[in-house]
Every structure is written in structure tokens, then in C-alpha cells.
């Protein structure tokens, strides 16, 4: 039974009987597939994922505890024209954010014109060590994960720009591989844009940001190690790109260069795709207790002896107080109108916003500016009266530490769960790659909250993934022609 009082936009269904045009063919196919068959495909996928070792590690449990992320066999579809908007909008944001990062670590024009407050320079993710450091191509966020949610046919919102070490792209690629294996007929029937070239694009970009003068740059992927929660992804990307997967202990600094220890002696490294946060990359420069990084790495980096991707200090651009400014940044740096909207956000440092928020706490989500991972926040609609009263006091004590947003009616997508096929909330994370150009492959990680009514899609909280199909549209005549051709083929066999 649905207890929810709100209605949500559904990616497939427009009502009890109606289906969005985009899904018409798929919905027909889905209706004819016996539920047991879908369930057996789901089990097959689980078996294969486990066999390949597509798992994530869970912190706090026994070392080496490996879990599968639930995989849903029903894909999320996007029309080519929907994708066009999302992709252009994501690229636009990343271009502006890269310019912002360059600016904030150089001339700080954006502070001078008053669009961003000077207090950003005291922000915990701001790295004063990066001031006046030139990074190759002016690129800071080589890989960015833009979290997008949908609330209606044409209502897309950016929830977050992940500019540090965004993860999940391996699931985009592995989910696709799995879907092609499980449902080859659907791939023949539809024209689904391919995503498999992602590692190649990434590798080309990483090679392009080596220091000038390096002819054949050596790229490595730096991982915290096999017990990191995203280790599978690190290994997967290194393998797909054909680069060494290194740990901190494999690298050392000599002179103004970084080397890896090989069986034939030291080998120079030019570009490090690091999947370690700033704090851990160099115990001499940042967290002295970190065993994961490379002593002296940051000083080589500052002097241009090695390129890090993403650059050090990108965190200052992906926090909530900066997020609010992204639409203005786009106008300021690019002179363009933002293609994708932010979630409307109230800044409690502003008097009007504060008054509105205090009057409407039960409908809003209130977050700490620098908080993350769901800590220090109030979700109005599910909070008790007491919790709201307590939170009001905390907000009043230091209003500028908080922002508020409406609770979003995240779209749902039909999902195979124990009870059969049911709507579950989804989000979307396309990965934007910056090198000589800023691009993305036509696809994204689609996360799905597997629990009924839940809006939390994080894998650490039971979220699953779906393959995302960007469809080149085909008319129903074309599809029936293909079906007929396929049937003939089967008959001949």
C-alpha cells in the first residue's frame, strides 16, 4: 500500500494505463515478459557480478567484507533531446567551475565583483597552498560527477557537483555490459547510444594534461588500496585504460619528479589520476598521519613536476555555499544563461530567507553549509515536532551556517523488487571529462532507492543502480520491421 500523499513524476508511466512515448516500445516488451523470467535474469546478473568481483567494501565490518550493489534489470530511458539538455548543461557547469577554481586560486575576480564572499578563503576545503599555482590547461576538475534529479517532464535540477574524486562510473560501464548480455534483443531493437569508450576518453584527457614537453606521458591511477570501498572501480579503470594501478608505497619523490618502483628500477610518472582525497596525498603537506600518500608529492606537484587529476583544492567548489553561486558563475565567466537549474536554495544568512524558512520548517530540508553525508541536517516532512523545535534553536544560534531547500519530489522509475515491478525513486550522475575539450559519454550512473518511499539512493544505504539508455528515437514502424527481421533470422536458424 502506498502511504505517500504526494504524487511523483514517473519515468515510464503517466497513469494507471498510460505510458510516456519514449517508453512505449519498452513497456510493450516488459508487459509480455513473464515476471519469473525477469527474476531469473536478475539472479543471473547477481551471479555474474559476484564472479567478476564487482563489489564494494563496507567500512566498519570485517576487513574484506565485500557486498554487491543491487542491480536493477529495468533500465532508465532518456530521449536524445532530453540528454542533449542534460549534457550541454553539465558541460556548461563544469566549464564555469573550472574557471572559478582557476580564478579563486589566482586573481579572485569573482570576489572583487562581490559575487562570492571573501569568507570562502577561510573555507576548510580552500587550499591556500594552491594560490598562484598554474595547473596544465587550467583544468582543475578533470572528472566531475554532476548529480541531477527530476521532478517533472521538463524539470531537471542539479543537486550537487562532485569535483573531488567522484565515483560510480564503473557501474555505468558494467551495468551496460550486463544489460547487453542479459537482453541482447533489446539492443538490436533500440538504438542505444554506446558508453564503452569512456576509459579511452579519460586516458586521452589524462595524457593531454601532462606537463608540456613530455612526449609519451606515463599515467598511473593512485588508489588507497584493496580495502577501499571503491577499489573495484580503481582496478577496473586502470585495467580499461591500460595504466598501472599504484598505491602510495609504490611511488617516491626524487628531485622534482615522482617515480614508481618497478622490477627494473625507478620509472618516472607524469600524470596521477588519484582516487585519494587532498588530505591523504602527501603526509608532509597535509595529514601527517596518512600512510596512503607519497611524501613530497605535493611539492613536486606545485613545481610542475607531475600532474594530479583532479587538481588539489577542488573541494572549495563543490560545497553548498559555492553551489548556490554556480548559476551566477556561469553568467560571470561564460556570459551564458544556465541551461540546468539549481534546486531553489534559501540562504539563512539573508534575513528574508531566514524568516521564510523558520515559518516553513516542516516542509523544508535544512543543511549545514559544510556538512556532508546526511549529517547535521533536518528533513522537515519526516522530523518530529521536538526535532524541529531543537533545530530551530540551532539555526537561530548561527543562521549563516545553514541553507534550506524544498523537499524534492524525485521522479520514480519502475524497478524490479520482491513484490514485483514497482516505482522507486531515482537520480542521475553523468560524468563530465575535461581535457583538451569538455565532454561526456552519452550515459550516466542511475542510482535507485530500493526501499519503498525512500529518497536515499546512496549505495551505503541500500541504494542500487540501473543502466541508463540514451535512445535515438525510432518509429514504431521501424521497430516492427526490426522485429520481423529478427523473427526471420530465428526461423532460419
Amino acid at each position, binding site marked *: 500500500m502506498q502511504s505517500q500523499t504526494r504524487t511523483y513524476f514517473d519515468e515510464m508511466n503517466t497513469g494507471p494505463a498510460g505510458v510516456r512515448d519514449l517508453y512505449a516500445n519498452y513497456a510493450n516488451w516488459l508487459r509480455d515478459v513473464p515476471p519469473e523470467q525477469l527474476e531469473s535474469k536478475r539472479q543471473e546478473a547477481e551471479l555474474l557480478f559476484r*564472479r*567478476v568481483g564487482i563489489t564494494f567494501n563496507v567500512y566498519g565490518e570485517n576487513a574484506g567484507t565485500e557486498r554487491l550493489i543491487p542491480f536493477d534489470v529495468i533500465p532508465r530511458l532518456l530521449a536524445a533531446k532530453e540528454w542533449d539538455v542534460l549534457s550541454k548543461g553539465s558541460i556548461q557547469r563544469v566549464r564555469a567551475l573550472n574557471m572559478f577554481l582557476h580564478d579563486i586560486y589566482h586573481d579572485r575576480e569573482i570576489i572583487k565583483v562581490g559575487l562570492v564572499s571573501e569568507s570562502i578563503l577561510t573555507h576548510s576545503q580552500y587550499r591556500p597552498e594552491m594560490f598562484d599555482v598554474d595547473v596544465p590547461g587550467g583544468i582543475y576538475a578533470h572528472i566531475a560527477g554532476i548529480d541531477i534529479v527530476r521532478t517533472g517532464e521538463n524539470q531537471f535540477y542539479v543537486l550537487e557537483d562532485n569535483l573531488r574524486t567522484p565515483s560510480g562510473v564503473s557501474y555505468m560501464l558494467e551495468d551496460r555490459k550486463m544489460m547487453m548480455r542479459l537482453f541482447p534483443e533489446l539492443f538490436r531493437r533500440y538504438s542505444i547510444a554506446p558508453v564503452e569508450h569512456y576509459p579511452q576518453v579519460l586516458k586521452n584527457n589524462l595524457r593531454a594534461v601532462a606537463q608540456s614537453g613530455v612526449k609519451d606521458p606515463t599515467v598511473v591511477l593512485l588508489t588507497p588500496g584493496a580495502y577501499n570501498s571503491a577499489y573495484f572501480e580503481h*582496478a577496473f579503470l586502470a585495467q580499461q585504460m591500460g595504466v598501472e*594501478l599504484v598505491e602510495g608505497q*609504490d611511488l617516491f619523490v*626524487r628531485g622534482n619528479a615522482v617515480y614508481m618502483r618497478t*622490477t627494473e628500477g625507478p620509472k618516472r610518472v607524469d600524470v596521477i589520476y588519484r582516487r585519494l582525497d587532498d588530505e591523504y596525498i602527501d603526509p608532509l603537506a597535509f595529514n601527517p598521519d596518512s600512510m596512503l600518500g607519497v611524501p613530497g608529492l605535493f611539492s613536486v606537484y606545485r613545481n610542475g613536476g607531475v600532474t594530479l587529476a583532479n587538481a588539489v583544492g577542488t573541494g572549495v567548489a563543490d560545497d553548498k555555499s559555492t553551489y548556490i553561486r554556480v548559476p551566477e558563475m556561469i553568467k560571470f565567466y561564460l556570459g551564458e544563461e544556465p541551461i540546468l537549474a539549481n534546486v531553489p536554495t534559501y540562504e539563512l544568512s539573508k534575513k528574508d530567507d531566514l524568516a521564510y524558512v523558520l515559518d516553513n520548517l516542516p516542509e523544508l530540508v535544512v543543511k549545514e553549509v559544510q556538512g556532508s553525508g546526511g549529517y547535521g541536517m533536518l528533513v522537515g516532512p519526516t522530523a518530529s515536532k521536538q526535532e524541529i523545535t531543537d533545530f530551530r534553536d540551532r539555526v537561530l544560534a548561527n543562521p549563516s551556517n545553514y541553507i534550506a531547500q524544498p523537499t524534492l519530489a524525485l521522479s520514480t522509475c519502475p524497478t524490479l523488487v520482491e513484490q514485483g515491478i514497482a516505482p522507486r525513486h531515482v537520480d542521475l550522475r553523468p560524468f563530465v571529462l575535461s581535457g583538451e575539450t569538455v565532454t561526456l559519454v552519452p550515459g550516466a550512473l542511475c542510482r535507485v532507492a530500493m526501499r519503498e518511499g525512500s529518497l536515499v539512493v546512496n549505495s551505503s544505504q541500500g541504494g542500487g543502480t540501473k543502466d541508463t539508455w540514451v535512445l535515438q528515437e525510432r518509429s514504431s514502424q521501424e521497430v516492427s520491421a526490426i522485429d520481423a527481421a529478427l523473427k526471420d533470422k530465428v526461423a532460419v536458424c
Partner: protein
Amino acid sequence: MLSRTANHLYWMARYIERAENMARILDVTANMALVPNAALSEAALWQPALEISGNAESFQERFSDFTASNVIHFLAMDPENPSSIYSALYSARENARAVRVAMTSETWENINALWLEFSQFEGKDLALDGLREFCDWVKARSHLFRGVSFGTMLRDDAFQFLRLGTFIERADNTARLLDVKYHLLLPKEEEVGGGVDYYEWSAVLRSVSAFQAYQKVFNDTIQPWRVAELLVLRKDMPRSLHACFTEITAILENLTTGRHVECRRIAGEINASLQYGRMDHIFQNGLHEFLTEFIECNNQLGAEIQNSFLNIHAA
């Protein structure tokens, strides 16, 4: 390649080989238990299995009796015994996981599947039932590992280190097996060449898949010194010491082209003794002494390989 990667590959291969050899020892011991032999008590039958693997002491710290059940559990399934098949396969998989990028995905998936399949044997008392199936499974997985790595991996350094691990471990195991069995089956020197128990010697041969080879090569009833010759000096016998060192010297040649590295000299020296050695000389000086020295030299070689390639030195 990265020293750390080479190290993981080398040990991954060693652990798989170790698991296979342990399975072979358990398998033939269990088989020997089926042959009526009043002279051999249960303890006398199972204790050598512990000695071959160099585990007798740690076993006695925890168990009082050398019963089939205790020994089989200890050598096959005991997570607390670092040399058990369980521990070897666990370590092989952990090493593989750390460097899954360095091997083909088929090789990695094969090792991962091995570990996932292992769970079907956990919690079973193999002494009661299923030991043979278990040993067959371990051997088959080891064959599969060698086949998939041999059939899919680029012949680069990663492959060489993987093969190196296999043969260093195998040489060690064959030498230990022969040493313990020879001791056990021929307690007094004058009995060398005397009457032997056909079943026991054929079991030794079977444990290294050499029973049919023996028939082909010697076309004779089983003589202990010939068993020794087959397992020490015959280059064409894939688990013999000489065969292992033919591979090891070639691999080290490949890895060190032109460079003088101590481990290559040691391997060459051992190989020469196997290539030009004569069985009657070895017996004159004592097979036990020969094998003891061999095991020592092989360990020293392992340490040198570790020094030359695998340990991470400070810059």
C-alpha cells in the same frame, strides 16, 4: 612492472601451487588408508602428511592425536593453519585481488570463482565424506588457473613472475615429498633396493601424477631409486626438480637480460647440479642430504628473488 605487483603475482602463483600440492598429499594419503596394512597405524599414516608440509609442530600444539579427522581438518580447512589449503587459497585470492589489473580478466575471474566455490566445502567434515571430491576440485582449479593464465596472458614480466612462483613452490614441494616418503618407507639404508611395498611407492608416484610416466619411462616394477631419479633428474617429468629448474633458469634469463643478478647465478648452479648430476652419486652421498641441501638452496633462491625484484627498497 611495479615491484609490488610482481610480488603479489609471484605469491599468488605460489599459494595456488601450494594448495594443489597439499591436495595431492591428502589425496594419496587417504588412498593409502584404504589399502589393508596392519603395520601402519592411523597416526603413522597421517603424520607424514604433516611433515611434508613442515607443520607437525604447530599441529601438535593444538591437537593431541594424529587422527585422520584432525590432520585432514588441519591441512585442508583450518583458517588458523597458515599452510592449510584454505589459507593458501585465501591468500592466493587476496594477492590476486590486490593486482587484478595485472592479469587478464579471465585469470582474475577464475581465481575469484575459485574462492566463491570454496564455500561449498566449508563446515564439512571431509574425513567422513568428500575428501576425494575436495582434492579433485583443488587440483582441477589449479589446472584451470595455469591453463587460463597460460592461454590468455601476454608474455610480459607479469607472466614471468607468475610462472616463477609456480615452479619455485613446486620444486620445494616435490623435494619435501620425496624426502619424507623416502625416509618413511626406507628407514634403514641397507634396505635401499630391497623389497618395497608396491602400493606405497605407487602412491608416491600418483601424488605427483607420475605413475603412468614411470611405467612408460622404466617399463619395470617400481624401484625406489628409480622413483627418486624420475622426480629429481628427469627433465621431461613436469613435477621433477630438474623440470622446475629448467623453467626457473629460463624465466630468470628472460627477466634479467644482460644484468648480473645473484638469483640468476644461484638458479644456474642448482640447475647444473640437476642437469649433470648422477643418481648413483646422489645415493652415495645420501638422498636425504641431497634433498635437504636442495630445499635450502631453493629457499635461498626464493630469498634472492625477493631481494632482486620484489622487495621495495628505499629510493
